[in-house]
């Protein structure tokens, strides 16, 4: 067993190259990371990374990816992580997930046309999954797409979409046969964001101004007789549930991660800096207990993510591991917020400019951990999937969706 990625001399050389490049290109940012100004800088960094194939390091080269091996990709993630940034350095889960579905289900023409803009950072893509009527029950969507000549006409509404800074394109799942059997009446579309009939309106949610770049605001997207070229239907008519299974699988956590949850190191730093009765908070036994609570939870999360990363990238057969990781992360998020509240008291709830020592992150996390319970499937949905994959009460065990990474 080996928990550490091992690197060839070539890969170590690659690390030096990446490190040098990043130190030169990393923009100066500060304050609210979700501000327009900061976003523009990160967006530019994304384009620059994309030009080198570093935005989607393991995606095939012919579609604009980096074509790199897993170890080199980890090198890239690690070096970006040193700046506290993911790849891409702005909100683009739509590109990540939609790209994966197109890679699996798209025609060659679609891959050549749709993937390069995503993989090179030319476009930002939003996923449109949830409707007012269809939350956990995604397949119950009432957004309809009706064929009309070479186009489909889309009507409906999707909620909890995207971030604060707009997108170039959307993908979504629609009903193409309202009378068809469940799961066999859906179709998957890539949709330019600027088509007539599309309206985007910000929602008012608990997580506003939440943690992370561009993850703050969510939007409602309305479709009013929006005409989408039939060429943008991916995976064939009424095959949308299959196409969705790919990105759902990844969204449920089966892609894994090599990153670390930063809450432990942050809490540790603040517990060293904050004073209580003239002594550092870290010397208080209660505070130490809460720090260990956070440490234990984040270590387990990290190990689940690492296991999934390895399984996914080395194509081990996966079953319940994705939703397990997702479930654990959601629930431990709530527990961590309570531990932080216990640790820092009312400081955990304020982003007041005079008193908050956390640059707004503590307060934002108290809210975003609640908001995080539902996206990518509620905690309950993760359990539903785990039960099917483990085969509780049934001999046949459902298998995981097909992904590439």
């Amino acid at each position, binding site marked *: 067993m080996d928990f550490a990625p091992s690197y060839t001399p070539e890969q170590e050389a690659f690390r030096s190259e990446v490190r040098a490049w990043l130190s030169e290109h990393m923009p100066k940012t500060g304050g609210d990371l979700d501000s327009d100004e900061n976003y523009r800088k990160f967006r530019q960094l994304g384009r620059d990374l994309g030009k080198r194939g570093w935005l989607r390091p393991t995606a095939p080269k012919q579609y604009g990816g980096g074509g790199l091996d897993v170890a080199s990709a980890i090198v890239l993630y690690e070096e970006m992580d040193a700046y506290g940034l993911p790849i891409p350095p702005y909100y683009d889960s739509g590109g990540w997930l939609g790209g994966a579905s197109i890679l699996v289900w798209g025609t060659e023409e679609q891959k050549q046309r749709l993937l390069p803009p995503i993989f090179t950072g030319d476009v930002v893509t939003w996923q449109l999954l949830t409707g007012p009527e269809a939350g*956990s029950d995604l397949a119950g969507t009432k957004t309809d797409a009706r064929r009309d000549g070479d186009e489909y006409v889309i009507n409906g509404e999707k909620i909890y979409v995207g971030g604060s800074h707009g997108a170039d394109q959307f993908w979504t799942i629609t009903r193409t046969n309202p009378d068809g059997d469940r799961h066999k009446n859906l179709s998957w579309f890539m949709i330019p964001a600027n088509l007539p009939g599309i309206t985007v309106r910000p929602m008012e949610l*608990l997580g506003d101004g939440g943690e992370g770049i561009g993850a703050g605001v969510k939007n409602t997207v309305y479709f009013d007789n929006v005409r989408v070229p039939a060429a943008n239907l991916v995976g064939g008519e009424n095959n949308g549930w299959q196409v969705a299974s790919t990105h759902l699988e990844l969204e449920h956590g089966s892609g894994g991660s090599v990153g670390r949850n930063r809450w432990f190191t942050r809490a540790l730093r603040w517990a060293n800096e904050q004073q*209580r009765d003239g002594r550092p908070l870290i010397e208080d036994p209660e505070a130490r207990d809460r720090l260990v609570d956070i440490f234990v939870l984040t270590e387990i999360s990290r190990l689940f993510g690492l296991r999934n990363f390895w399984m996914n990238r080395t194509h081990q057969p996966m079953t319940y591991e994705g939703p397990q990781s997702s479930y654990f992360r959601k629930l431990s998020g709530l527990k961590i917020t309570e531990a932080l509240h216990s640790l820092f008291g009312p400081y955990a709830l*304020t*982003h007041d400019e005079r008193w908050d020592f956390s640059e707004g992150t503590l307060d934002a996390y108290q809210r975003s951990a609640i908001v995080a319970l539902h996206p990518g499937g509620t905690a309950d949905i993760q359990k539903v999937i785990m039960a099917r994959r483990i085969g509780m009460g049934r001999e046949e065990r459902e298998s995981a969706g097909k992904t590439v990474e």
Partner: protein
Amino acid sequence: MDLSLTESQQLLKQSVEDFIEREAPRDTLVELQQTERGFNDTIWKTAAETGWLGMLIPEQYGGGGAEFTDAAVVYEALGHAPMPGPMFSSGVLSAQIIQHVGSEEQRQRHLPAIASGEVICTFALTEPEYRWGLHGVRMRPREDGEHYVLDGAKLFVYDAHAADYVITAVRTGDGEDDIGLLMVDTKTPGISTRRLGGFTSSESEVIFQNARVPKSALLGRPGGVRNALDRALMNATPLLCAYQVGGAQAVFDLSVKYSRERVQFGRPIGRFQFVQNHIVQLVNHLDAARWTTYEALWKLDSGREATVSVHLAKAVTSEGYREACDYAHEVHAGTGVMREYGLTLFTRLSRSLYHALGEPRYHRKRLADLVATIAVD
């Protein structure tokens, strides 16, 4: 033994609920929450005129002279709204402190004004090195003739941004008991208050810069404060618990309703056992909070030693309200985090009140000290 509300308590409850339905339905409260002050004059005037505000204040000081349980019925209904405003800070917490710590003259001067709503008052204990309890008080006034001169900051003071007076705990010496409480007028030069931003309810900073407070503002006598203050806190805490119970009840009501109305996979979501499990855990927390609170109130009303019960109630209620909201969010998923739906009004309070008058750990530690000395049978 009789665990029911009396008829007059039921009428009281109904009158608060009627007012809320008329003047402060949930969408109004969602709007109000976004405002700087956080409450409005209708609410405040009604609280004063109906006597809810001064219920616990003895009749000779212009109050209602009600029993604790009567007042709790009102505060539970207010928590169910959840009604914002400094009712608890002023009418319960500050009034109890003045009543127990202040001199007769001070009672006569301040309590009627509090009961009538004319004056809003709050209590400031914690400082930047946050810790609930008197040993966290470091602010030490300088004496200057007939004045104390104050410098420093009090933090996380509930409702200070709306208060006319802040009862400010200061240190008068190095001993544990060397604590003084000053009835500080917020219009005094050198004093500023400001509401803190974030996921708090109505917590503020109070900054003192060379602020001169007359010595007559000292409540009671220096050195004799601890026990009287403790008594006031023991009396006030269960009312805050009742407010939390009302909130947990509302969150339960919302969740059950949503479990019937929200349909997914062709069935109301409340038919799914995963969802049922959330609501079962929620109602267990709710009822634990409710009955520990009621027992503490009964002990106060019947003149029994209530300290253990009060600490128990605050620990259970604070943990329970927080958990209740977490489970409600699991039931509601995306809908629950939409501002207009109103669940987050409660979530916010469940967080902020979690540490009000001491976080659960504080009360559990005090419980440990108390129960460890219980005579072993």
